[in-house]
């Protein structure tokens, strides 16, 4: 069950790739699941009006059952620009944890595929699923090298390696991260992952889901749409599935199996 809390920021750090890390002070909060999100708003008046959705990037339990949250943020427009001016000591209103998060992978190897700031929910996921014998890999793409968010602080458990894709070829694989995913699956046919997790822009997730479906690999995606409430009431975030039914991203997602949204037929 979500709660609404005013929390203080302990630090605002450069997270690389033009992204910021907002580290909250420990507070009495409900422990989230990786892949869940919060509706976040600064204590300003009526503009910008709505809170903005952000994935839980990382969290830890500290003393007295308190929870310390971390968000990763890319500045896009008015709301994120204002949030980006927050400093240590600034206060934020956070409503959450909201939605359905990631599940454990069914086997010993899992790949995470991030489009830009889509990397945000993966540090928490890695913390939750890493085991000594699991091989976890991260594929991260952006338009250009300067936009690749940093990953060093959570790379230790990425025993399957990290690969970068840039559209302009300035670093790593030249092409989209979905092209990289397809080519890595070709290369790795003897050791395909038991699960692929994807987070990024909608079209990128749809393309990645098609690649996974073709390869017969379970794929879960973290969907996004403009959100008003985060609680299932405004109906703003509802998308249509291939079965012509409604899917409410904030309550039935944001994380879901790709085959709930897109048909396997369409991918062939």
């Amino acid at each position, binding site marked *: *069950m*979500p*709660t*609404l809390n005013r929390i203080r920021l302990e630090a605002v750090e450069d997270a690389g790739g033009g992204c910021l890390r907002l580290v909250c002070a420990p507070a009495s909060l409900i422990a989230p699941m990786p892949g869940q999100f919060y509706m976040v*708003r600064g204590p300003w008046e*009526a*503009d*910008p*009006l*709505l*809170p903005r959705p952000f994935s839980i990037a990382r969290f830890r339990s500290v003393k007295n059952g308190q929870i310390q949250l971390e968000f990763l943020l890319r500045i896009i427009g008015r709301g994120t620009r204002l949030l980006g001016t927050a400093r240590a000591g600034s206060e934020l*209103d956070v*409503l959450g944890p909201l939605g359905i998060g990631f599940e454990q992978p069914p086997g010993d190897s899992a790949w995470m595929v991030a489009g830009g700031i889509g990397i945000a929910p993966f540090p928490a996921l890695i913390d939750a699923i890493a085991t000594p014998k699991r091989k976890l890999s991260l594929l991260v793409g952006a338009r250009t090298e300067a936009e690749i968010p940093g990953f060093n602080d959570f790379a230790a458990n990425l025993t399957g390696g990290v690969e970068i894709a840039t559209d302009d070829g300035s670093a790593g694989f030249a092409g989209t991260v979905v092209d990289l995913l397809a080519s890595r699956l070709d290369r790795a046919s003897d050791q395909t992952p038991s699960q692929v997790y994807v987070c990024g822009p909608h079209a990128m997730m749809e393309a990645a889901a098609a690649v996974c479906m073709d390869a017969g690999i379970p794929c879960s995606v973290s969907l996004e*749409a*403009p*959100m*008003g*409430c985060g*609680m*299932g*009431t*405004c*109906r*703003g*975030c*509802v*998308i*249509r599935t291939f079965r*012509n*039914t*409604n899917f409410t991203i904030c309550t039935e997602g944001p994380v879901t199996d790709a085959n709930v949204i897109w048909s396997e037929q369409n991918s062939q």
Partner: protein
Amino acid sequence: MTADLSVRIGDLTLRNPILTASGTFGYAAEYETMVDFNKIGGIITKGISPEPRLGNPQPRIWETESGLINAIGLDNVGVEDFEQSKLDYLRKIECAVIVNFFAESAEGYAKLARTLGAMAGVDALEANISCPNVKAGGREFGVDPVAAAEVTIASREATNCPLIVKLSPDVSNIGDIASAVADAGADAVTVANSMPAMAIDIESRRPRLSFGRGGLTGPAVRPIVTRLVYESAQATDIPVIASGGASNWRDVVEFLLAGASAVQAGTVNFVNPRASVEMAEGLETYCRQSGINSLTQLVGAVDMP
């Protein structure tokens, strides 16, 4: 001494004038952990139609300066599922339960009003008349006094349940519509639904919403709604319920002074899910501190030049 904040709508007594607006509070259960329903006057459900509706494709909402444009497309569970899966919870909560509803013909409104009005646990109905009249070629019921009265009469004859009619703000004389609806038997009017609006992406040259147009809500519309509430209250004796941009107890007092008997909290629920309770508590404190012991001392008390 605590002030008497109660309000009467037909046979229904609300403990205080704060209601949550249709489409901004789901079916109440969603807010169970955040809102103490004992502290507000009532909740109004998402608009219910005869059949379930999927609503519009993405994008459905777009934020503008201090406002929100939505074109949800009346996405709702339909009356059957409402009774089966939402009503049990609503019967348990201790504030008034008002069901918002709409249809595409006067007969459709009558049928739905009869069905909903007979359900145990439904304390009042709110007819949303800002939707297209299929028979009149898609023109809204709410923009024409004759069509508005027709829907009101049809609904009124179908049920004894207190009936609120929710008006469109997009009219040249809201007083005419309010008095037509009052004469047709409505117990109250809600003023008003969202304001027709539009936003365009200058890069793609396409509208921001898939539907093209949408309805503007939130603080941006409040001064316009204050004027509409004032004009409606001047035109009729039935209670006027303000809906548009209220965010805090000060806005509530302003609407009461303009002539409203009750005030709905809408878009503000997204900004702060506890807003309705905070508005009720703030109003109570204000009344206590200003020596007001009945809301009648405030309603319509604006000192116009």
